[in-house]
């Protein structure tokens, strides 16, 4: 969903709107759950960022994500100075805009699967304790990924974010998230077993898709808890 206010939410969060614009936008927020959710996400990112000291990430996730959505050509083997690139970006975008871009990218990355409504690959068993392979799952930009590939890649990306941020989360929170991801994985496995016997069952197909969506939702929610570097 997009509306005339979506582009202004970052300014709103930064208190950069005029009084009349702010009043109009706040009236809009009272009826638009989509924009309200984005405002909440932006504020949460800013608050958590303020509480942190600067810390370099283990590696940059952007190249893998960019390749998947076709945002940039596939990189060559040439090494890129990520720190320099970030310095340039810092002058180009505000933190809320970067956060919004990250949220949008996660939606793009994981959004196709339930629209397609088809069976996906086997569920990925989650362990935040053991980070997945550090190399982002890469799908060539020239090949349109299947729904299952998009889903698996989105899950892998989010799991990687979680794995890298594990040390910054409360251990109890990590355990709860792992338990709930495991519960969702069991439900996914149940639905897949049921579909093996009845692949045309509309309910089972939609239930599987919905449960997979729940896993992505929980992973996104958990990834949002990881403080922003």
């Amino acid at each position, binding site marked *: 969903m997009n509306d005339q206010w979506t582009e202004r939410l970052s300014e709103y969060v930064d208190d950069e709107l005029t009084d009349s614009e*702010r009043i109009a936008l706040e009236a809009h927020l009272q009826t638009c759950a989509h924009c309200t959710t984005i405002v909440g996400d932006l504020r949460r990112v800013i608050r958590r960022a303020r509480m942190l000291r600067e810390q370099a990430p283990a590696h940059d996730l952007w190249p893998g994500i960019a390749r998947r959505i076709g945002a940039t050509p596939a990189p060559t083997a040439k090494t890129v100075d990520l720190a320099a690139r970030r310095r340039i970006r810092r002058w180009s975008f505000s933190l809320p805009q970067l956060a919004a871009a990250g949220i949008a990218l996660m939606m793009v990355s994981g959004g196709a699967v339930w629209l397609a409504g088809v069976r996906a690959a086997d569920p990925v068993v989650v362990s935040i304790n053991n980070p997945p392979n550090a190399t982002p799952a890469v799908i060539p930009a020239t090949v349109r990924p299947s729904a299952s590939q998009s889903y698996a890649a989105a899950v892998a990306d989010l799991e990687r974010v979680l794995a890298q941020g594990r040390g910054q989360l409360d251990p109890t929170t990590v355990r709860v998230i792992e338990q709930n991801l495991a519960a969702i994985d069991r439900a996914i496995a149940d639905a897949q077993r049921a579909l093996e016997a009845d692949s*045309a069952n509309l309910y089972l197909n939609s239930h599987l898709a919905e449960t997979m969506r729940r896993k992505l939702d929980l992973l996104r929610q958990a990834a949002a808890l990881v403080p922003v570097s």
Partner: protein
Amino acid sequence: MLFVLILGALSLGDIQQFDTTLAVGRGQRLDVNAYGGEVTVRAWDQNSVRVEASTSGRERVEVTSTGAAVSVRTQGRHGPPSEIELRISVPAWMALSLDGVNASIRVDRVRAPITVETVEGEVDVTGGQGLVSLRSVQGSVKLRGAKGRITVNSVNEDVEVANSAGDVIAQTVNGNIALKVVDAPSVDANTVNGDISYSGPIRSGGRYAFSTHNGDISLTVAEGTSASVAVSTFSGEFESEFPVPIQGTRKGKGFNFTLGSGSAQVTLESFQGTIELVRPGSENDPARRDRHDDDDDD
């Protein structure tokens, strides 16, 4: 204009008390960012915000006022703050945005949009108008007396909405969902491991979707209800306290039936639980609860 107050402290042993009051105008909202402890926001009949806090002395409370918002933020002198008890009084018209990490958050009698998010703590709200969005990862979420567009979300605990009106979205992963005396034109409630119960009118033209993987669904249906009902389960059961005109059987254990003219759309899905239709009043029947407890034991 920007005001920043670092609240003064009155030492009472190891506990320090903070107390300040700011005049506010309509249109200002309250933003709270509290790392841990308890946050209580109550409406009062004054156009001002009063912030009271009890801390151990290793934290401070920062209050900022702009034309758009009054912001209350707790800070530790060395790293994140620990437990702080915040008590805030606000005008009932003031919209709230409350954010915590290890914080339990309670709101009482505010008649404005409310957004609450915490990680490890309970959320308990009475009131709210317009957009009401409550979220906790590890704590339960309870909402009463709200009116508007309602979203309640937990991960590992129960969510409950009672005596409220408006569109409702209720989600959890490992918990029950209870929607009691809710007057909603649309409901979307889903959990993975948990029961779902709904009591309230099923409105003509409304849309109601309930889904659980491993749990029961109990839907209260008043006499005279007009709804098209779709029931789906894989290995669960369907029960009804009253006769239903089942018209056809879908592939698997799914079927549809129509009550009245069928104007509302009701979807009931439980992969392996019992889906039950009950009459108003019956949901609290002790004999029925005992019967279900016996079934669960089996």
